[in-house]
């Protein structure tokens, strides 16, 4: 038995793909029945001078022109080209096309094969769509990220501006405080043995609060701006805690609280700035005293837990509601504004405490069982090894004495400030003159021949550094004892002052006790 095989012609005509033969200019010379069926055309019509590219859509024609023809020219074949053929009814027939260019004797023909790709094309469209969507999503994400970045930049700009504003505000508030404090000192001295009157006492106390608040504000803004440098050295925590407890005693006893201290029997050393650490503990104690109803109990304890030094301040006070525990260390977070105001708090103290503790590499947390049930503040610092006990004690309070007379020139653009400062100095037996700008300072220095010049940096006509340089360069200038006074108690101010020829630098408002120490130094020269 023989199996019938299709004749060659049948194989061409009814192949499972569309076949077409064209001249190199595209004119169709043969086409099989399969392709005719797909296109709804007759072979006669297609071979009546029509061209291969006429079967394509416009896009296909351009691609054929710009890609297929040059490739046929160079490499005589193209493979797997996607083209849409146009059906007689103008509908599209998606196909995949291969072309091979062959010489047949003298003539050259393009052999073209088409495969229908409806399914494949829709699959590829989906792929393409998915890819586009992915690209669009990526683009959108990039856009969102850029927006977020811009927003973040804006936020940190705003934050920086807020910090700068606070620093400026603190600075501006500090300046008028100086003459006010001086005036109070004067009034107290004049009161003599009778002691200050009650209104004066109120004034002194409240100005003290105000100065304290402004200092806190200044400190916190310096911490947030990274301008605080710690003077760290190994210290015994017990010394610092005792000193803080001593300082807190007036507040504690005024509210009839009792304060219980529990300190380790062996030295517990930390690498810390003693003044700052005292400030932290004092702040916590003052808070405890403030927020505990009169007659309460405060416990202050220090102990070692492994490689940490732990300080706790516990009270029987009003406590902290659970929802506020997470935010009380943030600036201006207030539990109950009305209550806070009554207690004279701005919400700066705890933010300052946390800032200082974190500068020391430590941590602080607050716990409370609820309102009316007291609070516990737990402060943890890295402890030094137990045997490293060569700790320096907290510096003792400075002695004050400056009995002899000095000629002192006070320069400040604020007449209140110069007037009160001069009065204070004269009460202490010194001779004074004042000037209010750089030119005046130079004239006064030449005429009055002072031994000491107290010079404000912010003068209207020239800055104090320049004035100092000129005074130093003037005849007799090298013997002058010059003290700079600025509102910005910053390290670089200090450096600038010293390099401009100042002997010392003080931060306004000027601590009169410190000034007297400097005057003693001037006298000793």
């Amino acid at each position, binding site marked *: 038995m023989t199996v019938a095989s299709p004749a060659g012609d049948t194989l061409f005509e009814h192949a499972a793909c569309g076949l077409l033969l064209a001249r190199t200019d595209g004119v169709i010379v043969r086409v099989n029945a399969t392709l005719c069926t797909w296109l709804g055309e007759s072979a006669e019509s297609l071979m009546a001078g029509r061209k291969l590219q006429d079967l394509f859509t*416009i896009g296909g024609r351009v691609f054929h022109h*710009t*890609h297929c023809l040059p490739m046929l*020219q160079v*490499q005589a*074949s193209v493979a797997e080209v996607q083209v849409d053929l146009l059906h007689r009814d103008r509908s599209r027939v998606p196909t995949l096309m291969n072309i091979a260019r062959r010489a047949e004797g003298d003539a050259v023909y393009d052999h073209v094969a088409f495969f229908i790709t409806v399914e494949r094309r829709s699959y590829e469209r989906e792929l393409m769509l998915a890819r586009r969507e992915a690209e669009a999503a990526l683009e959108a994400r990039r856009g969102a990220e850029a927006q977020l970045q811009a927003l973040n930049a804006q936020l940190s700009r705003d934050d920086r501006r807020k910090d700068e504003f606070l620093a400026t505000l603190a600075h501006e508030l500090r300046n008028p405080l100086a003459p006010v404090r001086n005036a109070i000192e004067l009034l107290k001295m004049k009161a003599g043995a009778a002691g200050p009157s009650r209104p004066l006492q109120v004034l002194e106390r409240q100005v003290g609060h105000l100065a304290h608040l402004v200092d806190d504000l200044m400190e916190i803004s310096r911490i947030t701006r990274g301008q605080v440098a710690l003077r760290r050295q190994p210290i015994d925590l017990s010394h610092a805690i005792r000193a803080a407890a001593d300082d807190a005693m007036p507040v504690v006893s005024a509210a009839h609280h009792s304060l219980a201290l529990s300190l380790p029997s062996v030295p517990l050393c930390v690498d810390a700035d003693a003044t700052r650490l005292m400030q932290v503990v004092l702040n916590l104690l003052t808070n405890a005293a403030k927020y505990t109803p009169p007659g309460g109990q405060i416990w202050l304890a220090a102990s070692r837990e492994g490689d940490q030094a732990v300080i706790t301040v516990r009270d029987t006070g009003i406590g902290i509601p659970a929802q506020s525990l997470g935010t009380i260390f943030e600036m201006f977070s207030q539990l109950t504004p009305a209550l806070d105001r009554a207690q004279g708090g701005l919400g700066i103290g705890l933010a300052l405490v946390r800032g200082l503790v974190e500068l020391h590499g430590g941590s602080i947390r607050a716990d409370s069982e609820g309102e009316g049930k007291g609070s516990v503040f737990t402060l943890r610092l890295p402890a030094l090894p137990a045997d490293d006990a060569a700790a320096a004690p907290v510096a003792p309070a400075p002695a004050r004495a400056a009995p002899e007379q000095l000629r002192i020139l006070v320069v400040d653009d604020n007449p209140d400030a110069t007037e009160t400062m001069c009065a204070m100095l004269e009460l202490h037996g010194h001779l004074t003159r004042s000037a209010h700008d750089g030119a005046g300072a130079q004239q006064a220095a030449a005429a009055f021949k002072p031994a000491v010049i107290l010079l404000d940096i912010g003068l209207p006509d020239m800055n104090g550094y320049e004035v100092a340089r000129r005074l130093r360069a003037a005849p007799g200038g090298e013997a002058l004892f010059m003290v700079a006074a600025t509102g910005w108690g910053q390290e670089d101010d200090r450096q600038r002052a010293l390099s401009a020829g100042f002997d010392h630098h003080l931060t306004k408002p000027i601590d009169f006790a410190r000034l007297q120490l400097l005057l003693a130094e001037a006298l000793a020269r």
Partner: protein
Amino acid sequence: MDLQRRNNVQVRGDGPVTVVFSHGFGCDQSMWRFLTPAFESRYRVLTYDLVGSGGSDASAYHRDRYGSLQGYADDLLEIVEHYCDGPVILIGHSVSSIIGLLATVKAPERFAAQVMVGPSPCYINDEGYTGGFSREDIDDLLLSMDSNYLGWSSSMAPAIMGVPEQPQLGAELTNAFCRNDPDIARHFAKVTFLSDHRADVAKSTVPALILQCSDDIIAPMTVGSYMKEHLPNSELVVIDNVGHCPHMSAPTASSQAIASFLERIPA
């Protein structure tokens, strides 16, 4: 900048004047292989690839710079400046004839003559202008670019069917010709087919030969006539050819037309 690397610049032949060949959309400098031999005996011949095509440095392709044809024109001027002394003869195909036109407008002193093969200043029909395409046609074109470039990348070329009677075909070309980065090709297509430089045509005063194919859907006869009419110092020669690449399918007729044009212009 390394222009050689950026544009795959190739210099051959010897002569007092340099002929610069700039290829068109879709391919690369290899498409000049049938035409350049006719020039190499009398001229210094420079061919290069547009950035994003052929052997150019694809990393130099920045969508901003190549978001208009002016970016390519600036590249061309940099190449002329760097590689050539006197004024050059420029032969540009298709979109490169317009790129060349922009270069001659910007620096006419650098060009002695321009040969434009199948130029079109604007592909889309407009009032009183027949570019040959509607906006829908162009969208259809961009779509077929998409589908044809879908699976293409420089690392994955489809198998080329064996064609034994092509001895002139170098092996290096077999798999590389017209294989451009799909994303760049799509962007280049968009920039090319949406461009409209009709306003620049009248600004070019460099002597020009417009080489027009008799049957070319990319640059139909109407566009050739428009160019002749608006380009100040131009002549039009029609080559009997189907398609858009007479320099490939009719290289002899093309080189003869160019040679006779070059004889007529002052050296």
